């Protein structure tokens, strides 16, 4: 029987000790409360995939008006900021120095070739930032395609109009394709991960190093009571952080909250428990603050940032890596919180991911309890 006669009394006593210890460490508390607010502000504004005013050099070696006309579409774009020149060598220098991200080159015989039916433009990109390069390529080819469509519509060409396919595009859940909308819910997941890792991962290891745990072993205290008393105060602290994050997401970054708030809070608290319990488990398993802190960093924050679908879409990842990412609790919370914010309540997904998270929470609490069984190394 886990809950026996003295369970609540002992738990209360332990809780009082843990809460006092938590409140006594001012820096700990301040960071615990401030960190999420600072992080979500910093990253909500700082992280963005939206290419805006990317500097592009347009090298016009053909002076015919058609040549300028083809690229007129670049001028009005809010994504690109073209600078016009006629000197390829200086443009290449600019590209090398990182002053422009791409060069669009119109060769001298461009308009003559166009009249003959087939003309060529050259697009030189700096591939080091491959993501920006791809986006810029998309805009440039889009501008030229729309020029071509326009020209065909005006009947500038011989022969009957052939009719063309026009894409009517709609992006669901994020009409303006604003990257902040998908990054901010992901940031909440990262913040919850980080809080869990740093708040609890030293708690047990520290007591081992100082020898206070051995002192506790001679009392009637049970391992489960120890785990629960170390978990509860930090769940409360984490819940305050969660509230700050949700408020910032809703009112500062105006990310729509299409799912129900109750489900968002429930799922987040579940994940918070998982991540705090993971910290405790690491702490109990290593019994050493140095190793515990390294492990916490390696098993929580890094995988959550790189492998959970935070920015890198798991669809593009090899199957083996997908399997690994499915093992991470962060992946399940990441997918769920993004859907809850942007798409709405998707019950099959909520039930599946929440039960996975609940299982993780139980397993990790059991694991932490196991590391605290009364046995000396």
């Amino acid at each position, binding site marked *: 029987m886990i809950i026996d006669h003295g369970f609540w009394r002992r738990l209360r006593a332990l809780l009082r000790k843990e809460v006092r210890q938590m409140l006594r460490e001012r820096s700990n508390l301040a960071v615990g409360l401030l960190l999420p607010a600072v992080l979500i502000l910093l990253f909500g504004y700082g992280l963005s995939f939206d290419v805006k005013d990317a500097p592009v050099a347009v090298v016009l070696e053909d002076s015919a008006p058609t040549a300028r006309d083809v690229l007129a579409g670049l001028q009005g774009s809010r994504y690109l900021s073209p600078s016009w020149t006629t000197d390829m060598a200086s443009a290449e220098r600019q590209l090398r120095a990182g002053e422009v991200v791409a060069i669009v080159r119109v060769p001298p015989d461009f308009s003559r070739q166009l009249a003959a039916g087939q003309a060529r433009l050259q697009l030189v990109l700096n*591939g080091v930032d491959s993501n920006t390069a791809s986006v810029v390529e998309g805009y440039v080819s889009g501008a030229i395609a729309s020029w071509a469509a326009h020209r065909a519509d005006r009947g500038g060409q011989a022969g009957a109009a052939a009719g063309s396919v026009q894409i009517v595009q709609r992006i669901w859940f994020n009409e303006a394709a604003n990257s902040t909308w998908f990054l901010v819910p992901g940031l909440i997941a990262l913040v919850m991960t980080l809080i869990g890792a740093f708040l609890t991962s030293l708690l047990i290891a520290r007591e081992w190093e100082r020898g206070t745990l051995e002192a506790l072993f001679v009392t009637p205290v049970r391992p489960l009571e120890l785990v629960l008393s170390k978990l509860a105060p930090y769940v409360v602290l984490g819940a305050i952080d969660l509230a700050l994050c949700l408020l910032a997401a809703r009112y500062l970054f105006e990310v729509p909250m299409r799912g129900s708030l109750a489900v968002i809070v429930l799922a987040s608290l579940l994940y918070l428990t998982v991540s705090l319990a993971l910290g405790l488990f690491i702490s109990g398993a290593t019994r050493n603050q140095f190793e515990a802190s390294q492990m916490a960093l390696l098993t929580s924050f890094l995988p959550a940032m790189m492998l959970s679908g935070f920015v890198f879409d798991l669809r593009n990842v090899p199957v083996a890596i997908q399997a690994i990412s499915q093992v991470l609790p962060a992946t399940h919370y990441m997918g769920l919180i993004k859907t809850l914010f942007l798409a709405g309540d998707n019950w099959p997904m909520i039930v599946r991911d929440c039960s996975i998270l609940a299982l993780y929470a139980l397993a990790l609490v059991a694991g932490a309890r196991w590391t605290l069984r009364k046995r000396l190394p």
Partner: protein
Amino acid sequence: MSALIAVVVRIAFLVRKELLALLKEPSSRVILFAPALVQSLLFGYGATYDLKHVPYAVLDQSRGAASTELLARLDGTGVFKRESTLGNAQQIAPAIDGGRVLLVLSIPADFESLLAAGQPAPLQMILDGRNSSTAGAAAADVGAIVAAFNQERSGAAAVSIERRAWFNPNLESRWNLMPALIAALSMMQTLLVAALSVAREREQGTFDQLLVTPLTPIEILIGKALPSMLVGLLQSTIILLIIRFWFQIPMNGSPWLLYLGLFSFTAAAVGIGLSISALSVNMQQAMLYTFLLIMPLMLLSGLLTPVRNMPEVLQIATYVNPLRFGMDLVRRVYLEGAGLRDVAIDFVPMLVLTAITLPLAAWLFRNRLT
């Protein structure tokens, strides 16, 4: 001269003691070097922006030659995979909501006849915007395929774009990310090692003993900094070797310059770590401050999203982030083959940071006795 030798000998003793403390436990050795190996492999495969697999669904109400031809082109890319063929518009929402498909193409019944009549025929594309960057990339790909399709049908004068991407011909995001990891991955653990080094001694009470030895604060500083830097440089080397020989990303620059850059970068990171360490009374605090710093350092460095996309204020703030410049330097030397003159500017913030943080740590050693 003999005084100098004495200094070197004293520092060597301290370095030896630090390395012993750091590496004597087999579990510590594993924890310091295995992650670099595992992570660079995992992230090398896992961290990619390149579209490899775009599942899509089709609602084809026209079933004509034109729509079949267009879809065949899409399937021919090898990236777009037709997951299902929908029977009616009600099935679109469940297909996208459940995440089964990234996009749905809806082709109206009059598609064929509009095209034949020489009129614009709408092709509706519905994308899952939960990851707007994947959605944007997929939309651009479909756009390019449709543009080529239109051009061939009309036979109008075409403007073809010859693309040439310097330093990364296929625009693979792995080429962009992996060199950055040489700096980013090693920084995290190096920072933590440095931050814990003094804090551990303070917690165990041995730091006071160290202060009464003949070692001056500067010597303690050097003795503490060198082992952490060694750990960082070894980790960077592991990652570098994996990138070069496992992922076979060609290296264009000079290894000497690369290591000179990594050395200054690691020095700056260790300087920050030691300052944290000197400020903290115990390991819990040191770890706390380190974690507090790591997330901004990582995310506001240009690792995942370019610095150019940040608001002006934050761009200025990144000048105190050694990772921004260390990463830029490694990327440019590794991929572009940049020379010392090209990347000299990257050294400035890192050296300034080192010159501020290391003396600060030394001063704090003495003046923060609790």
